[in-house]
Structures are given as C-alpha cells and as structure tokens.
C-alpha cells in the first residue's frame, strides 16, 4: 500500500482528498452516502460574521459541463456556527476546515478570531474570492493590496493553519498568490468560481436573479489546472487544487501541476460518492504506476 499522507503546513492529512466549501454542507448531509472520515478532510460552508439570507431565487443555471451559482454566502453567521454547528462537527475525526468570509476586514477578523478558539478546527480557508456578494468576497481577492490587507489582519488573530482561497477572476493570479504568501498565508487553495452569466433567449432575461454568477464544474477544469500550475511555480507554500475535479485522473493532473492536495466540489452534487471514488482511484493509480508515496505526484509534470 502506498502512503497517501500529505502535509499542508501543520496539517497531516491522511490523504490528499478534501471537499470544497459550499459543495459539502457540514459533512453530515453526506453521511448516508459515504464514510466522511475516509477523506483527508472537509471544508465546510462559508461562515460570515452575520446571518445572511443570500440572494433571491433563481440562484442556479445549468451550463455546458457545469453550473453557475449565485447563492451569496447564505449562512446563519459565526455565532450560530460556534454554538449549533460546531458541536455536530466533533464526530469527524479527520480535518474539519472552516471557510471564512466577510464584507469588511473587521468582519473576516471577527469570524477568524471566534473560530480560532475551536479546538477541533485546525485550519481556516479565507474566502477572498466569492463572486456573488456585493461587498467583500471577491473584491478582496482581485487586487494585491486588499488581498494582503485581509490576509495580514487575519494572520494576526489566527494562529493555526491559514489557507487563502484565490479568485480566478484576475489578470495575473501569481501576483495575488505571492501577495498572500508574503502576508502570512500557510497554504493557498484555488480556484474559486469563474464569473459567468446565463441568458434565457426566449424571455430575453438573465437566468440568475443577480445576472452574473460563479461558474464551476468540469467546464472550468482546464483554467483551474493552468492557474494551479502558475501559482505552484511562484510560491513556496503548499497549493490545494480546486476546479471541476470529477475523477481520480483529474485529481492526479492537479497534483502533477503542483498541488499537494485537492478539493472535490461540484462533482459532489452529481455523485455524492465522488470524493471517495476519487480517493480509491488515486490509490489504484499509485499501485498501477508503482508509486510508493502520493507526494511524488506533486509537481511531477514532465515538460
């Protein structure tokens, strides 16, 4: 049996398969379908300082090999998370990672501080890349100074593993990656959704209530792969690859491009067992290629 363990800063993941925020609820929604503890970890739905109702319906449009969403960070706020949701996460023995969002630097700091006190959560993923909120979110992740400011402010109050999740909606993603690394990020995950749009030709109206939304699914995979490759070359911290990963081959491609771990996102919607199937497929690949340690894959691209 090959070793599947990978390190993301201080996290020793038993395997490189994680689930992406917003596509896996709080884990429990998948308990009927898989053993959630079999995964390296889960990144739970984004938490903001305040309760958010999210955007009006319709929030979703199916697109070729993917979907647009405009959920708008619907969640009950950090205090509810700490009091009601966190206790339900204690049953998971793998890593539970919180996704932190806000509309101001102070908001991000408030959520990070409160989650810092939770023993069972060893890492946060800083969401500076949500395209579906009017303030904050992606606005922080699309310029170096604002990405630096929010990362630095959170770094000051958060002493465990800090992952920063990047937006692909930028001209040079390496620059943002370097900025957040410099500001204290322990790891970088990418990509969040690509800003897109859908129109109903019959009604001449936009499909989404917000007009634009975030594209995910296999349609974004080549873009995500390219960006992971660019960022992994630029930074020293570990990179977590996200973007349309549906099969074990997809996951391995991201690792070859430089990712130390991967997140399964939209695929969870089509097959709630996708994450564990990808894990089994990675093991099968290692066996077939006679590789004893999954970490050999990271950056193993042959040019």
């Amino acid at each position, binding site marked *: 049996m090959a070793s599947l363990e990978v390190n993301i800063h201080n996290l020793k993941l038993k395997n490189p398969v994680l689930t992406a925020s*917003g596509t896996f609820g709080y884990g429990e929604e998948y308990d009927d379908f898989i053993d959630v503890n079999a995964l390296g970890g889960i990144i739970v739905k984004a938490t903001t300082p305040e309760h958010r*109702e*999210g955007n009006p319906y319709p929030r*979703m449009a199916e697109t070729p090999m993917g*979907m647009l969403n405009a959920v708008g960070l619907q969640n009950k706020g950090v205090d509810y998370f700490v009091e009601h949701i966190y206790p339900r996460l204690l049953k998971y023995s793998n890593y539970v990672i919180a996704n932190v969002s806000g509309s101001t630097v102070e908001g991000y700091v408030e959520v990070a501080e409160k989650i810092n006190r939770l023993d069972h959560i060893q890492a946060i993923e800083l969401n500076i890349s949500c395209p579906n909120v009017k303030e904050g979110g992606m606005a922080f992740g699309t310029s170096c100074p604002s990405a630096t400011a929010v990362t630095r402010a959170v770094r000051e109050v958060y002493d465990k593993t800090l992952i920063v999740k990047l937006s692909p909606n930028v001209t040079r993603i390496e620059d943002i990656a370097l900025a957040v690394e410099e500001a204290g990020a322990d790891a970088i995950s990418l990509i969040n959704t690509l800003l897109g749009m859908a129109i109903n030709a019959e009604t001449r109206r936009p499909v989404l209530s917000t007009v634009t939304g975030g594209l995910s699914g296999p349609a974004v995979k080549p873009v995500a792969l390219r960006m992971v490759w660019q960022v992994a070359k630029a930074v020293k911290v570990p990179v977590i690859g996200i973007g349309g990963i549906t099969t074990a081959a997809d996951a391995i491609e991201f690792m070859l491009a430089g990712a130390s771990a991967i997140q399964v996102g939209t695929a969870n919607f*089509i097959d709630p067992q996708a994450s564990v199937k990808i894990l089994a497929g990675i093991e099968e690949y290692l066996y077939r290629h006679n590789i004893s340690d999954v970490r050999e894959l990271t950056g193993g691209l042959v040019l």
Partner: protein
Amino acid sequence: MKKYILDLKVRSNRRLNRNHNLLELGCINPLPPMVPGQFAEVRVDGSQTTYLRRPFSIHRVDRAANTMHLLIKSVGDGTRKLADLEAGDSVNIMLPLGSGFTLTRNARVLLVGGGCGVAPLYYLADHLFRQGNKVDILIGGRSADDILMADDYRAFGTVYIATEDGTLGEKGMVTGHSVLKNKELSYDMIYCCGPDGMMRAVAGIAEAHGIECEVSLENTMACGIGVCLCCVVETHEGNQCVCTQGPVFNSKQLKGWTAEVETGCSLDQ
C-alpha cells in the same frame, strides 16, 4: 429518513401522451422506505446538455411488485433521454429526498393537480385512501390529452376534471371548477401540485375557506440534499431549501402566498 443512491432497472416505460412517460423502476432488494411527497434525483446519462441530476416526484410505489414509478415530462434533452429508456436499462437514482405531505386519517381531503403536477398525487391518493380518508381528486389540463391516467385515480375516490378547451370534464381552468367554486367548500386539507400560478390560486381559495393547504414546489436544484442552497424559496422563516425543507410546504409558510399583511422588512440589499 435514510437516503440511498441506487442503480435501478427499468421494468417498463409507458408513453402516456406526446410528452409524458411513466417509467417503472425496480431492483432485486426491497426498495427503501419512502413517503408520499418525497422525490428522487435521477442521473441522466448520454445527454451532452445535461450535467445535473433531474428531480422527479415519487409517483407510485408498489410494494408487492417492489417497483416505483416516475412520471417524466419531456421538456429538454435530458428528460427526453429518460423518456427513451427501455426495459432492462439501468437508472442511477438518489432517494428518498425531501419531506412528504402531512398524512391525515379518516378526513375529507381534496387533491388538486395541474398538468404533470399530478406526479406526486397518485402515491398520496393511494396512501390517503388506505388511511380511511374520503378523497376527492381534481385534475386540470389544457385538453383531454393532458389529463393523465385519470381513471387510475378512481380507485381512491371521486375524480373531477377541468380542461381549458372543454374536451373533458368542465371547461375552464382547474381553479374555476365547480368543486373549488363551491361557497360551502369544506375539506380538512387540500393538497396541490401544479404550475405556480395554479398553486397560489388554490392556496388562496383554501385560505378563504379556512382550509389548510399543502403545495409541492419544483424549484431548479443541483444537489437535492440541502447542500448547494440553490433551490430556496422565501418563507416567513427566511430562505428554505425546497429539496430538504420541502418540496411540500404549507402555503401559509410561503412568503407572498397568502393575504396577510407584509411586515415591511426587506432583506439587506
């Protein structure tokens, strides 16, 4: 209720009219427990334009035969692929999803279905009949050809029909049928599924007579299990997922559905 992901076999596929099929599915093991009003998410294979699963009401469950039925309306390439399935084909399905209808006993109930909105009502009528309820069923459609399997419902109660062109039953909209026009309308519960406007109208009539009304909603969704938060409906307790907190709602839960005065608070912009 525990959810399952299963590969079921198509036992039969009956074409009901130009764009509706009745798909009978079964498997070797007993089908999981499910209740009227719940739904299934079906994976569509072989359709280039269909990425997400498609939700369908659980139309019938035949425990003796260990089969279940889905009523498929062909509206796009994905549903057409499902309508083209043949006996012996495999279907990957997640079920049972969502919450069901409130099930009364020994009561007088009215079921109102419009078009393919009858989909969840067969299983409901079957169950309510067995529980000693007196069941009336009102089915509406554009034309006689749109009234699906009306005879099948007669086993459970009295069937009333409305067609817009008058080719079957009373002429006009289902909401204008004499059953609903009755000034003395008195049921213990009205269950309704159909187009949005029809459900709102039926809910309004029910409210005017002080009758509880449950409606089954069909918002577009991705996951079906309360994760993606795409299928939300505005309720008096905030946005709720149709896939987990519904698809069945009491019409009084839904914001803007009943006549009560809105409080005037708006969501943050």
